[in-house]
């Protein structure tokens, strides 16, 4: 459903993405592995339209969306859950979630259904729905961030390091949630440094280094690959 062909992205003269081509099919859970500064977030921002690609083509379901505005891409079903959660700390949990459904604001009934579904998925949020999002724990905030992204009813959900700064037990929970979201039919692109945990739930993975995709393969290939093990799993 998502296809990138030779995409470049630049910060002034610095080339942060260099000829990135990747393809994600509907229903897949694809992991993007890479160290700090490899270009994971740049790639995400380019797909979601926050950055305009300097070259290349991006298509969604065969439609060219290169250089489209972020709001148009959200409308088209590409929703990014940003790194570091980035909630509206002062707004209540419920208001955060409702803002996530911004593109469906005219469809109240549908929005309420999605909201109920999300609150059922994260019962703790139901309990805290009137508290300011900033007062929640890190893991709970991550749930709000994921829930907020889901409120946009994405076809493609892009999760940028959802495990960042979370306790190991909470990380496990987050990955289980991601897996169940994928099982319900949402295509997921997941950027992670926590390679082992991410690979365990993925169908396929790409490895990004210095702005270039250097390797790709399915789960078993990646878990068995010596270079990947050395660089990202540390075993």
């Amino acid at each position: 459903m998502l296809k990138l062909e030779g995409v470049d992205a630049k910060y002034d003269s610095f080339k942060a993405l260099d000829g990135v081509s990747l393809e994600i099919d509907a229903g897949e859970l694809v992991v993007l592995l890479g160290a700090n500064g490899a270009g994971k977030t740049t790639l995400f921002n380019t797909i979601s339209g926050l950055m305009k690609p300097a070259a290349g083509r991006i298509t969604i379901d065969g439609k060219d969306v290169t250089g489209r505005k972020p709001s148009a891409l959200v409308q088209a079903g590409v929703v990014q859950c940003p790194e570091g959660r980035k909630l509206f700390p002062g707004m209540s949990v419920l208001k955060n979630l409702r803002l996530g459904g911004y593109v469906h604001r005219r469809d109240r009934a549908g929005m309420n259904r999605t909201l109920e579904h999300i609150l059922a998925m994260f019962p703790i949020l139901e309990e805290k729905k009137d508290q300011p999002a900033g007062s929640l724990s890190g893991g709970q905030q991550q749930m709000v961030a994921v829930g907020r992204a889901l409120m946009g009813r994405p076809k493609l959900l892009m999760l940028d390091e959802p495990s960042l700064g979370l306790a190991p037990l909470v990380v496990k929970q987050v990955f289980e949630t991601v897996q169940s979201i994928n099982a319900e039919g949402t295509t997921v692109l997941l950027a992670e440094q926590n390679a082992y945990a991410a690979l365990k739930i993925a169908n396929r993975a790409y490895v990004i280094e210095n702005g270039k995709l250097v390797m790709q393969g399915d789960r078993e290939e990646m878990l068995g690959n010596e270079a990947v093990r050395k660089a990202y799993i540390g075993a």
Partner: protein
Amino acid sequence: MNRAIDFLLGSTMRWLLLALAVVFPLVTDNEYHIYVMALAFIWAIAVYGMNIITGYCGQLNLAHGGFFAIGAYVVAILTVDHGWPFWPAFAAAGLFGAVFGFVVGIVSLRLKEHYFAIFTLCVGYIIYLMIDKWEALTHGSLGIINIAPPEGFGLVDFTQTIPFYYLVLAFLALAIWLTRRISESLLGRTFRAIRISDDLAQSLGINLMRNKVLAFVISTVYAAAAGGLYAGVVRFIGPEEANFIHTFDMIAYLLVGGIGTLMGPLLGTLVITWLTQAVQSLEEYRMIVFGPMLVLLVIFFPRGIVGSFLTWRGRRMARQAPRKTRESRVDTTDSNSADATEARNNA
């Protein structure tokens, strides 16, 4: 204690303030004070406009005084040179404020942060120059006299101070009610989302430009309407109405009262207006009083009177929250609690 706080922030308090404003002319026999109050209300309406674009949406618009002057001049030119009655001219002022705001908005809002502020500062100055130099239209530095007052009905005569006071009060109440409706709607949250982060707002699917322009147009309509009322009460205006001093006065009102809060603009405008009255005898030297006061305020109460109160309340609620749910960890970093109070703000 909690009940007292809730009372201060609740709707009962707002009705009480309105009741106070209604009885004010009945308890004072000094007509000058009523006149000062009416003028303060007019400025407050304009400050409410600035609060939408600058307070809620986070875009520092330094052309706001210019839009106030435009509203005043539309009423002045239409009533004096074209013989219009006040009310149609007043409606035209609001409409023109919207159209001109839209045009300036779609150009200036392409810029962000400081660049937007600098650009609008220039727009404000251009408005001043146009009013000052385009003599055929604006009478130039002579100004315009004999502006038509708002037509009354029955026994109500708006050339008199007390009826005019009530007229302005009605418009102010409308402005506050409208601000509250916006603030509590999805639109208000959209504006706040944009203030907190452009990128984050966009990645939720919010069309930045459309919403920023909308906030800008709403704010210029407030300003132009306030300007129109001003022309109707003062009945003489000159290019000085477009002096950017007025914009900075309004920023001061906004900062003192509490930027991005519901009652801040009113409170700030009233406090400064009456302080100015109190130290009138010092004339030009009154800035010696105001300067240090503003500096102290910005250092110790950066969010103004209402904003600081809300921050304090937010901290208080955060302290009480852990007692209810043990596992909830409370983040009391400054920006968080500040925004926390604000999002819930009903003050």
